[in-house]
């Protein structure tokens, strides 16, 4: 029942999007050799009840990856922006 206001395409049904997980976690550098850093990036999640920054891709629209701030309790969306900062 979610609708996401894509900054490129406008308000769209969530059927057009693909969920991409927690956006608050920093990905280690591609050549970071620390297993602990990769373990935290891949497996450790807070799963908070409340505001949550997460990735969504507008797969059947503009295909941009977005950062959506969604309240996990009621799905209220506070903000939507491009994940790639230069496109904001």
């Amino acid at each position, binding site marked *: *029942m979610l609708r996401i206001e894509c900054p490129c395409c406008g308000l769209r049904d969530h059927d057009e999007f*693909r969920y991409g997980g927690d956006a608050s976690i920093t990905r280690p550098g*591609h*050549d970071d*050799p*620390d*297993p602990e850093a990769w373990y935290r990036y891949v497996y450790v999640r807070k799963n908070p009840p409340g505001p949550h920054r997460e990735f969504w891709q507008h797969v059947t629209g503009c295909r941009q*990856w977005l950062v959506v701030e969604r309240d996990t309790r009621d799905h*209220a969306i506070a903000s939507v922006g491009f994940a790639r900062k230069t496109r904001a």
Partner: protein
Amino acid sequence: MNSNDRRLPAGGRIDRMRPIGFSFDGRTLNGYQGDTLASALLANGITLTGRSFKYHRPRGTFSAGPEEPNALVTLGTGGRREPNLPATALELAQGMIAESQNRWPSLGFDLQSVNGLFAPFLSAGFYYKTFMGPTRRAWMFYEHFIRRAAGLGRAGTERDPDRYEVRHAFADVAIVGGGPAGLSAARAAAYAGSDVALIEQDFLLGGQLLSERSDGEAAAWLKAIETELAGLPNVTVRRRTMAFGIYDGNTLALIERNDDPVVQGAARQVFIMLRARAVIFAAGAIERPLVFSNNDRPGVMLTSAARTYFNRFAVLPGENILVATTNDGAYRAAIDLAAAGARVTIADQRSILPAGLAEEARRLNIAIRSGTQIADLRGGHAVKAAKFAGPGGNSEIACDLVCVSGGWSPTVHLTSHLGVRPVYRDDMDGFVPGGLPAGHFGAGSMMGRFSTADAIDSGHRAGIEATAFCGKSAAAPAPARLDLGEAATDAFRAIPSIVRGKAFVDFQMDVTTKDIELAHREGYESVEHLKRYTTLGMGTEQGKTSNFAALSAMAALRQETIPQTGTTTFRPPYAPVAIGALAGRSVGRHFKPIRRTPMHDWHVANGADMLEVGLWMRPYFYRVAGRDVNEAYVAEMRMVRGAAGLMDISTLGKIDVQGPDAAIFLDRVYANGFAKLPVGRARYGVMLRDDGIVFDDGTTTRLSENRFFMTTSTAKAADVLSRLEFLLDTAWPELRVAVTSVSDEWATMSVAGPKSRDVLAAAFPGLDVSNEALPHMGFIETEFAGRALRIIRLSYSGERAYEIYVGATAGEKVWRHLLEVGAAFGLRPYGVEALGALRVEKGHVAGPEIDGRTTLDDLGLGRMAAKRTGFVGDVLRRRPAFQAPNRQRLVGLECAEEGKRLRGGAILFIPGDTVAGHGRGRITSVTFSPELGRYVGLALLAADVAAEGSEVFATYPMKAETVRARIVSPVFLDPKGERLHG
């Protein structure tokens, strides 16, 4: 045949000029336009409408709305059969075919009503104890008996021929309920400037006003406001529409029904997702029954329902009527029924009577007994007499209808769906919605405003407030007044009766006061436990009439107040929803799209047996090669290994990768290196996930310095593209690279086999396809008939092979051309079964091995990444657990027994193992190898028992087969790759 002999000569909201023929349990009957099925049955004197769920007790119509627990019917025949519908909410339609449920062989004579004798088996907790307790084995014994005896209607097994729809709708203000509060809210919101959607489950607007006289002031008020709403262009009225749930984002889920079997072309049901900026709940209230012995007999009815049947449907449901009540409201029904000529007695539990109403009642010769309650009823298939308990001692009167009223419960279901807990209000002895969130408003009896005047007033205010919430603020003129003289709140706690026989709390689930006592005694005291233990409120009507009586009973047993006991959680759907309505048109071929390759029509026209692979249709095998797949794939393999074969591989994912940093990007996403790939050359590549598991494999060709052409597996095409975009958008935005799917732009086919180069040379005469110009992993770009053509020399089968790419619209043309010139070399098409078999012989891993659990090392591909770092999945693939000595790794297996075969999915054991559990590994892919003359396969097998040359047992429990297999290299054919080169 009786025909409408219970129908009054005048009055009601039925159209006597439009009779309607229908059938019930095979009897042909008549009703009128404006009837429900239940009112038409009552008009025909039919008071026995069903048998109860567990005990098969006779039951009659109890209510006049969707809260009906008893009169459930199955509608329609064949594929249109729909069970468990409340007759009280079904609009009568010409040709309607309805059947009663849960009776055998007939409603009047039910053999299984002897189940009453087995009652101890079916008491509370029977299911719980049988399934969960130490007596679970008992289920084996009881199952047959229970399944037959305890059940509601059966669904049809034939295909439903009707059409269903899914729609989206929008409104500023959505109003649930078209009674006085909802009508007033719709009017106010519309005048104030909102786009309004008014939702009413009934086929008429009016709610409780429909139970008032059809020619009185309530009817006049209703007619006036309906006319007013019809003249407001910003109001959409949805009748016959049930709001069954509310979801996040103010999304109301609605079902619009059309039960008329003769309306052609219309969807039978429409599932509507209505998104509103504000929602007004005006869903009304449901009358509560009274609990006493045998309170489920046919002829016991809610008092408001009796009044509805009389005033709305012109049916007098009894002639000798007892009204048992705890409140003032029931007097109005008694007065209406007495005025129509019925003999009426009121048994009021209260000792102080409402003076005005009592006087009015006595003027109509209604006898009133104060401080009196019903102790028991006599009569089996129909009520005959009621026994009283009260200050006047025990007495008995004859009656043919018992109207009961235990007060009213606001319909808090919908507001509860979003987690708003109902709160108890002592002044009305009931639950109302707790604090509603922003944008939600309530009005009318649902909010405890029971009088009509109050409902209209609260609706008006809600309409204006909801519109203001939407940011609009025009004025709305005050609505016309309607005062029917009801008290604002009207509550008196029902006194529990002294129960001798069965006294039902939940009619539909056959839960009695004894079941609640048993649950209490056994410690299931919380309301949520009580519900699950007794199945209370778990029927199709979700305890709409039973909930409060059960809470009261449990509170009394626990010596608590009702708010201390609490209430259960209501969840969607408010009323049963047909799966067909949710699916809409997404059925059969429309359930998921079909993808066809550019050569699809040729395959079908030329004897291909087509196979669904994900969304794709692919040629499985060609009938020219064999009668069935087993014969054909072996013949097609021989053709490829001996001469040449043509395969449609257009389904491969294709991604164009461009930009100054494209080579760096590919170096990071593939486990093996691509930066040093020369222009004009292709390379096999494997991608990992971040967790070190293999993600996908494919090939990438360097078209120019900054441009690459990537292929992915058919299955992972979408996932790979999305992942590449994710990495570029979120992880490495500094890389100047763009990726674009070109999967549908290119038709792709593979020419494989020792004669493949001869085919190519003949097909494209001007082109140098010599080993020097186009070596293994080489690439050339050319033109065919004015279209760009790409040829990449790649092999999947192990033979010399070329992948040919051409614009999709020219795909069939090139395909035909190749077959035409290739015929001289023995070129024919082959299907995916042969393709899969050829790759197994060659030891190439594919989907069955790259199954989301295997690493590069597991698949024997570790050397590809041996000296590299800095690519996706590099760090976590080195986890110690992935290096465990018994980690399952890829091996080849060949069948060691003459005349036997290997099977995919077989479980592997070593000699001496007990054959149980998951074994040491499993066979992932098998094929018959024409080259080796036996079955061979790929397997994942614990590395500590996987020495080449040793034997394992492959067991296939589905067919009770066990066969010996020898561990060999997974590359069964041409291990040096001599066939590929040169």
